[in-house]
C-alpha cells in the first residue's frame, strides 16, 4: 500500500514542480528523490508479475484425516457384552485407543464423541462430512459371531452429485469404501484374525461423504475351543487396534499415490 502511494506521487509531481526556484543542492536532492521514486515504481509494477508466477515446486504434505465414530453412547447403550459392559463403553475405549495410536503415527483424527454422550446418527455423519476425511470408521462390538466383521454400505455405487441426497450420500463413495474394506481386511488377516466382509444399511454411514466402514469386533472363537479371545481381553483389543492403525497407514500411502 505504501508503495502505491509513492507511485502516484512520482507521477503527479514532476510536471508542475519549479526546480529553478530552489537551490542547486535542493534540486539535486529532489532529482535523487525522483529517481528513487521511479525505481520504486518499476519495482512495484513488477511485483504482480512475480505473484502470478507458478508456485514453488516444494508442495506441503497432503492432509490425511481419519474420523473415528464410537457407536452408541448416552441414552443408547447398544448391545450388552458378556461381561455386562455396554457396547457404548467398549466402543469409546477403542476409539480413544485408536486415536492415540494414529496420533503417534502422525495421522490427524476427529472423533464423534469423547465421552458418554448421546450423538444422533445424523450428527455423526455431519461431523464426518465437515471433517472431509479420507477414512471414516464406525466402531461397534457384539457377542455374536466370531472375529472382526467389516461392513460397507449396501447402497449401490453412484456417480458423485453436486447436491447428493442425505440418506444416500455414501453411494458416491461406496467404491472407495470397498477399497478401504479390502485394506482393513488384509491388515487384520495379516494379524491372524478371522474377518468377515459384508454390506449393511446403517444410517450413520449411509450419509457419510467419505470412505466409510463399520467395524464390529466380536470374540475370536475357534472351533473346538471355548473362546480364543474375549472382548474384555486387553491383548485382543490391542491387537485389533494395532491392525486397524496399520491398515490406515497403508490407506494413507495409497491415498497419496497419484
Amino acid at each position: 500500500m505504501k508503495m502505491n502511494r509513492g507511485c502516484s506521487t512520482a507521477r503527479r509531481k514532476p510536471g508542475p514542480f519549479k526546480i529553478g526556484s530552489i537551490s542547486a543542492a535542493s534540486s539535486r536532492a529532489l532529482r535523487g528523490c525522483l529517481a528513487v521514486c521511479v525505481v520504486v515504481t518499476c519495482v512495484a509494477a513488477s511485483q504482480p508479475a512475480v505473484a502470478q508466477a507458478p508456485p514453488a515446486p516444494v508442495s506441503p504434505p497432503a492432509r490425511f484425516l481419519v474420523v473415528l465414530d464410537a457407536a452408541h453412547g448416552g441414552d443408547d447403550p447398544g448391545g450388552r457384552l458378556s461381561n455386562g459392559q455396554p457396547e457404548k463403553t467398549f466402543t469409546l475405549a477403542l476409539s480413544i485407543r485408536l486415536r492415540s495410536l494414529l496420533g503417534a503415527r502422525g495421522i490427524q483424527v476427529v472423533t464423534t464423541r469423547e465421552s458418554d454422550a448421546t450423538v444422533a446418527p445424523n450428527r455423526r455423519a455431519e461431523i464426518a462430512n465437515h471433517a472431509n476425511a479420507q477414512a471414516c470408521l464406525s466402531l461397534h462390538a457384539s457377542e455374536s459371531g466370531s472375529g472382526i466383521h467389516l461392513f460397507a454400505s449396501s447402497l449401490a455405487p453412484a456417480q458423485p452429485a453436486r447436491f447428493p441426497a442425505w440418506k444416500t450420500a455414501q453411494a458416491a463413495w461406496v467404491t472407495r469404501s470397498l477399497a478401504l474394506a479390502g485394506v482393513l481386511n488384509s491388515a487384520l488377516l495379516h494379524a491372524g484374525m478371522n474377518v468377515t466382509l459384508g454390506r449393511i444399511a446403517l444410517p450413520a454411514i449411509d450419509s457419510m461423504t467419505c470412505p466409510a466402514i463399520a467395524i464390529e469386533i466380536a470374540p475370536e472363537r475357534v472351533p473346538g475351543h471355548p473362546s480364543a479371545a474375549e472382548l474384555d481381553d486387553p491383548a485382543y483389543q490391542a491387537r485389533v487396534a494395532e491392525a486397524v492403525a496399520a491398515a490406515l497407514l497403508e490407506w494413507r500411502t495409497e491415498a497419496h499415490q497419484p
Partner: protein
Amino acid sequence: MIPRYQTILFVVLLVASVVMSVVLWQLRERAHQRLIAGQDSAPTQAPQVAPSEQATLLVANDSDSSLLAQIQSLPLPLDPGARARAVLGKLLDLYAAPDAAHPVPGGGSSIAQVFLLPAQTQIPATGPDTGPNSAPNSTNSTEPKPGMTNSSQTGPELAVVNLTGAFVSGHPSGLETETLTLLSICGTLHANLPRVTQVRFLVDGQSRATLAGHADLTRTYLTADAAPTEVTHP
C-alpha cells in the same frame, strides 16, 4: 275420596308398565333367537390340513456369516400371505432352537402378519421416509389386510413383514446378527414366493428405526441382496 285426575294417571301408568313389560319380553326373545341363529352358522367342519410341501429356507450362520439353503417339508396353505407367514415361522423356529447357529429367541409366533402388495417399479435406495404410519401405505393407498394379495397380479410384489415387539426386543444386538436375520427373511421369502422382490418391516404394525440398535428397518430391502456374504479366513 281420590280425585278423578289421580285415578286416570294411575291407570295410564299401569297400562304403560304392562306395555313396556311386553316389549321387553319380545326384545329378549329376539336376542335369544339371534344367539341361536349365530350358533347355527358356526363352522362344524374341521379345517382342512394343508398338504406338506417342500420349502427352501435360507438359514443364517453366525460363525461364518453365511446363508445356507435348507429344504424343509412343512404344511403350506394356498393363500400366499399365509404361506409366507408359515415359511417365515418355520425359519424363526429354527433360530429359536437351543443349538441354533443363529440364535434368536421368539420362534414362529414372532411373525404377526405378512402383507403382499404390488411392488413399486422404482424405489429409492433407502426407501421412502417413514412416519409412524407411512410404511405400508407408501406403496398402496388401500389398507392392507393379512394375507391380502391380488391374484391377477403377475408383476413383482412387495412383502411387508409385521414382526412382534417381543421378537424385536429379544433380538441380540449387533451389526452381523441383525443383518443376517433380515437377509435370511428376505431370501426365504424370495425362494418360496419368487414374485417377492422387495421387503419392508414393521414392528407391531408401526415403523421402527432399527431392529436391535443397528440394522435399518426404515428402508426397503431387495431380495436380490440376500446372497451369502463373502467369508475370508486366515
